[in-house]
């Protein structure tokens, strides 16, 4: 479980990078519809969950420290 939780920040980094690239691509070619499909929504929620998890871990770690 601890190992799994330690992966959360990395997942958060990766998902945020992927989302950022999608947003930049959409600015240049919105006709691709990259931000309108189900894949984007899934990615967005995964990213939000990963970010939330990472933030909680950081907060708990800070309190324990």
């Amino acid at each position, binding site marked *: 479980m601890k190992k799994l939780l330690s992966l959360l920040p*990395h997942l958060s980094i*990766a998902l945020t990078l992927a989302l950022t690239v999608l947003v930049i691509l959409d600015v240049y070619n919105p006709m691709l519809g990259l931000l309108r499909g189900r*894949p*984007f929504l899934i990615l967005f929620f995964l990213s939000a969950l990963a970010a939330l998890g990472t933030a909680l871990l950081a907060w708990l770690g800070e309190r324990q420290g």
Partner: protein
Amino acid sequence: MNRTPKRIALTLLADLLLAALILGAAAGAQLFPARNRAPAAPPEPTATPEPVPETSPTPEPVSEPEPTATPDLRTPWQIRFADQFTEETVITENSYTSPQVAIHISTIQTGEGAKTVTYHLADIHIASLDNFRTRTAHGTMEYFDTQDLMEMDAESHAILAISGDFMLYQDRGFLVRNGEIYHQDQTWWDLCVLFEDGVMETYRRDEYSVDELLERGVAQAWNFGPALLDREGHAMDSYETSAAVGYPNPRSAIGYYEPGHYCFVLVDGRQEGYSRGMLLPELAKVFEELGCQRAYNLDGGGSAVMTFLHERYSRQSNGADRPLGDLLLITEEGWEDRR
């Protein structure tokens, strides 16, 4: 490098690789879902046709036919633009005239050196909307399908054609082709509608209701844009589009003067010294100066192409044709046999 920084670098690299994998999967899933997708549903019927009243049992007295005048079988547009049409089909390298279609193409060059711009203007008069058609790749609605340009051009019997709005890449919006309705959602961008009476209108995404449009009778509806002219026929102040507006590019666009009279404009681009392409405000200015009432930008870049008499008329930016999703075209029955 000691162990810790090396480990950090490797971890970040792993994160980057993971990001690339996720990005690839997400973009792939969005862009190439077609293989398992069912073919597009047949167009929904818009309204039940009203029953035709039965003929009256008591026949009206038949009046004697007038001895002289032969009936004028011309369409209203043939009468209105009589000076544009010819009795026989006449074809030159940049014009086509017949009793139903009149096309005159002129190539205009402006600017000098690196700022040279070349565009082709096709002035179009038609006898009826049957002469103004659209065609999708392979004539079907297969999502993300494309077809070789010249193949599509030949199969659609186009006299004149330009690239469309890449409709097969659009899974929503308000899409109508040749009277058939494929999607009935609000669009994300400006909309262009060619009504069955030949009037063309452009709308911002919050300016219309799909039901009202359908009630009026829609022949074609394009989702790309942006609209280039305002309601007074002046170039727009701002455009509902992406950052690509900031660069000169090859462009294709359609203009509207009045029912039966339209124009296609194809701007060559990305070829320094011949044509750098146009910015959208420059393209809008062209339509304003032509005196069009409405104008609408279509698919540009490497997709922008004009064909005439089954030959490529514009000069492709990368030298080769890109397979396309759809075309706007002017045609008439049996014209190839009369060449």
